[in-house]
């Protein structure tokens, strides 16, 4: 990114042992994330694992139009391309940002702290619409029946990927050294990094 940073990098690496490089990826602060183009959101065809009806509960005409074009197209390479380029599951900053957005966007309004209330529980091993990152991003952006609103246009793909990474850490899918620890609020049980890894199973009928 800048000439001097390269000089400092080579100097420090000469000092440090060539330890495993997993540390680098976990600690990346991706401040230079390229803005996802507004109309680019519409072109991200994310198909759900199971053909569900387009989200009905969209509260706003503009986003309904966007999500309808999204829902009926099949899964395409560009979705995983957008996500695959940066594996949010292995970046501590992304998972921590996801945890903050989970509170900011009021996901805990329906999903509580992961235990579920109106919305389904997220910390257990029951998954209706898939537990892989692209599938969770699709669930967030398209919305799901029985009340999950579509956030396409409202939440950028980058933020959705961060939220998906955090949701996965709730059930221990994220590595222990990447998962977030406790938050500075009332204690909601064991912090994510201390939860054992659940083996995700397909839940019952949608």
């Amino acid at each position: 990114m800048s000439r001097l940073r390269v000089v400092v990098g080579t100097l420090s690496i000469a000092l440090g042992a060539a330890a495993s490089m997993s540390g680098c990826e976990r600690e990346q602060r991706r401040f230079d994330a390229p803005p996802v183009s507004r109309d680019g959101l519409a072109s991200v065809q994310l198909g759900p694992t199971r053909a569900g009806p387009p989200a009905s509960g969209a509260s706003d005409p503009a986003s309904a139009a966007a999500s309808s074009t999204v829902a009926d197209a099949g899964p395409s390479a560009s979705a995983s391309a957008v996500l695959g380029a940066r594996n949010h599951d292995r970046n501590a900053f992304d998972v921590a940002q996801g945890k903050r957005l989970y509170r900011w966007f009021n996901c805990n309004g329906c999903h509580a702290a992961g235990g579920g209330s109106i919305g389904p529980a997220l910390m257990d091993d029951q998954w209706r619409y898939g537990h892989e990152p692209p599938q969770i991003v699709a669930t967030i952006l398209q919305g799901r029946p029985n009340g999950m609103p579509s956030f396409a246009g409202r939440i950028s793909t980058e933020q959705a990927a961060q939220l998906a990474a955090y949701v996965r850490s709730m059930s221990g899918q994220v590595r222990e050294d990447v998962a977030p620890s406790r938050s500075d609020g009332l204690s909601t049980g064991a912090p994510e990094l201390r939860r054992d890894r659940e083996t995700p199973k397909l839940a019952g009928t949608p």
Partner: protein
Amino acid sequence: MKRRCRALAIALAAALPLAAFAAPDMTDAAGPQAAHILQLWRVTVLVCSAVFAAVLVALLWAVWRAPRGGADAPADVSGLMHGEPGPRRSVVLAVGVSSVLLLSLLLASVTTDRALAHLVLRDAIHIELTAHQWWWSARYDDPQPSRMFTTANELHIPVGRPVILTLNASDVIHSLWVPQLAGKKDLIPGRSATLTWRADRAGTYRGQCAEFCGAQHAWMALSVSADPPDQYEAWAAQQRAAAATPSESRTLRGQQVFLGASCVMCHNVSGTDAGAQHGPDLSHVGSRRTLAAGALPNDDAHLAAWITNPQAHKPGVNMPGTAFAPDDLQALVAYLRSLR
């Protein structure tokens, strides 16, 4: 030299739209508290400079007058056999003088403390200031709840009237410091602090977060404009009014774009559906001088650039970038700029 530097600074400030503030210099006191502190500052600098000069003179004189001797010169151990009344008397005298000076400085400090604590607080303005990671939100309290209003990053206060700030932090520790008005006070999560100001001279005073609070600690400025009372009342009335409803088609389209995009997830514009509190209140963003807590000047070009890619201007900020279609972007910028 200091006078010339300040003149140069002001000239520079006028030239650049960004830093439209006078240098936040603690010696340019604009309120009683900064004045009290400045007075103590000058007394202390005087005393300390005198002591420093005395010690240096004593040292240089000692080094100048003492005879020279090589490593082979015999060491004079007479001091171990019998006492040395001469040097003892001067050392005891010097230590005594130092102790008396320190005591006097202590008394000066305590009297200044009392003076700061006794600022008259009759008919004060009450502001609840909350610090977030890298911007300030301020709520002007009022006995009538309907007259309360919220703004961000820029405060206006009437000249001559005291201001009582209740300080809270929502995430990490920050510290509010406006050198020309008063000393700093930390905003600590889980604790509430109070700070009192009074500006006796009209002007815009730059404040800054003074406690390291993360990636963008450098761009967390706050500007305090001390206005004559009538000009303040006009500003406050304007802030209390709901956001301007768009009149012509471009700003109406801009509002549609605003409500359809991710802005509503974090920002609040009174009078519309957007009511989130995680970002600065945009109801009157058009009337502010800078964007992003002092990082960018508030004009069309910078606003458009900021919306498209905030990370380029303030890397690490929590605002996501959204690349609108060019005409959508123009409409959105026009709408936001219209929110006077």
